[in-house]
């Protein structure tokens, strides 16, 4: 089982890669759109990148409703458990 810290680090890494933002901008409360500037196409890219990073297959419809980095960590963790 992956530790939540480890998941968070990997989520932040993916977010920084996909959205081209600095890691210091990304906190658990960061809203993908409002705080990190994700455009709609990037939201889809994020979901795909998380699946690749964690080797999981997520419910895309639900995944796209996730708004913050912290919620993404929680959402991805469900699949890792």
């Amino acid at each position, binding site marked *: 089982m992956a530790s939540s810290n480890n998941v968070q680090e990997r989520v932040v890494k993916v977010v920084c890669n996909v*959205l*081209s*933002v600095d890691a210091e*901008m990304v906190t658990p409360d960061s*809203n993908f*759109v*409002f*705080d*990190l*500037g994700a*455009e*709609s*196409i990037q939201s889809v890219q994020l979901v795909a990148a998380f699946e690749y990073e964690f080797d999981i297959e997520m419910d895309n419809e639900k995944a796209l409703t996730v*708004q913050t980095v912290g919620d993404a960590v929680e959402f991805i963790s469900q699949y890792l458990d």
Partner: protein
Amino acid sequence: MAMIKAQSKTDSPAASWDPLDSIFCPESIAILGVTKTPGTVPHDIFENILTGEYTGVVYPIAPGKRSVSAVRAYRYVSDVEDDVDLAVIVFPASVVDKALEQCGQKGVRGVIIISAGFREVGQAGAKLEQRVTDICRHYDMSLIGPNCLGVINTDPAVNLNASFARKMPAAGRIAFLSQSGALCTAVLDYARGKGIGFSKFVSFGNKAGVTEIDLLDYLHRDEQTDVILLYLEELRDGRGLIEAAGRITRGDNPKPILVIKSGRTLQGASAAASHTGSLAGEDRICDAVFKEAGVIRAGSIEELFNSAILLAYQPLSAGDRLAIVTNAGGPGVMATDAATNVGLTMARFSEQTTKALAASLPATANISNPVDVIGDARSDRYQSALKSVLADENVDEVLVILTPQSMTDIDDIARTICDVHRRVAKPIVCSFMGASDVASGINILQAERIPHYVLPEWACQAMADAQRVRQWRSRPKAILELLPVDKAAAADIINDLPDGYLREDQALAVLEAYGFPVPAYRLCRDADEAVAFSETIEGSTVLRVVSPDIVHKFDVHGVALDLGDSQAVRAAHERMMADIAQAEPDANVLGVIVRGMIPNGREVILGAKRDVAFGPTVMFGLGGLFVETFKDVTFALAPITAATAGRMVREVKAFHLLEGARGTPPADIENVEQYLVRLGQLVADFDRIAELDVNPLIVASAGAGSAVADVRIRLG
């Protein structure tokens, strides 16, 4: 910066800063949610502001981006060091509330929310919209939108294109307000093709904050705007709109308002039980009340702009006398027909004009109105004809028609018209019929702001609309006078009753309290009582069943007419009770109304309905069983003045019957007008009255009054 008051918000405390100046004349703008992807709304809006040569400062708010289009970007609006007057929000709906909170804390004064995903998508969206409204209210921010195209202000002192329209329109004196964003882009393209410019252009979308009424009032004060156009789909405060229109369309600073109101369906009308209810669809009421408030209602975009350019480009004519100058007989006759059909008067030339025309035109020319300068006319003939008719005191406005013959010097004629136009204060409109041959001539006219119409019929329609504006402005403002009524007596009846139909005796008592001519009647419980009361009546008797369970009396044989004696009354009573027992066995029959037979007269309907958007309205028309068939009715907002009642009565076709058609004496029209005023007072006093029909009111000859033959009132 040419703001409404021509003052900056930073002027002295006495300076008046209009809250909507923050939307139309901001000195700084933040675009929240800008992206770098061309072809997307968040990108194109920012680009439009940049390339539109906006005179203020613009700040892109784009988290995670250093710059957008070489302009330094900010993560949050709160990071901007300077004040921000206007925020244009293009973030997705899910984070708009967060953006708004920051705007409020930053001290932003105006907000345009372009984003969709609010009330228009259902309940969840409506909840989000409510939150947005609450935040704006909390921070006292003026809000346009959400779900809109944006705002354009062509004032060169501002040059603001805060929209995702493809191009900035030309500057002009016409303002356009639209509930539909998509229509805006089509209108902008249409107007560009016609050389029409705008002062302000506003797509107000879901109108969660600023409404069309706020915008109308703002444009009334706006020095850049002469004519206001409004496209409306949904009326939430019809009465407020009409009151605003009344303020704007006349008085010290009158500006015409032209409206397209879509959704011309009789929503819910089919379910209404009363005549008035079934006739009083929102569209019919709109038609009538817009007219009564001086608003011109257009049926199409073409019609809207046809009238708008005349009102914006030309002075209002002093009267409705039209002269036509044409080089083509057929179109001249067509134009004459069209002018007459829309209510314009063909001018009768003075002797001097006729002589001048005869002297300057060939013998074959027609020197009466329409003036036919003949197909081979060149600019000199147009010039002399135009000068002559425009100098005539009997001519208020001129329509110039041209068809392109081989010898027609189209551009010279256009220039001649422009030259004449500069020297007179009377409106001139043109119809250069055709397309490619006349195109350059049309351009010359449009550059001079001389309204041009493809068809002379369109020109006539526009001139008729301008006449309505002129007549409306000159109409004396009527004063509402309250008539003496017994409101307390009506309240005693209405206030104690549940929603639903009043019994006939109750409805009659309400009318009596408001002074209606109700014939003497009695509610009789049985045949003996009915016979006894009928013996006190002069002439024949009428029986009408009274039951809270029976609304449509005729359907169950619940009405007996013209009963000559006691025996007939008793027999009719027995028959009626038997028929009702069979047709409505469970009906609670309280008795019958017994009254005298009303002598024949002309039957009219006086109706009322509480409209969702407009509140209490009154209706007048031809009465009887065929009200819905002929639909010869008109409406007004209650309460009404005596002048409005007079206009309503004269507006329906049946007025000719009341006036006295084919040898019949005139009916008591004044009497009808008085009861319309009383009806307006009644429904304005009691907002529980949802529908009311006095149908028919039987009107006797002039001076002989009228009588209520039937009434139906529904509370709800």
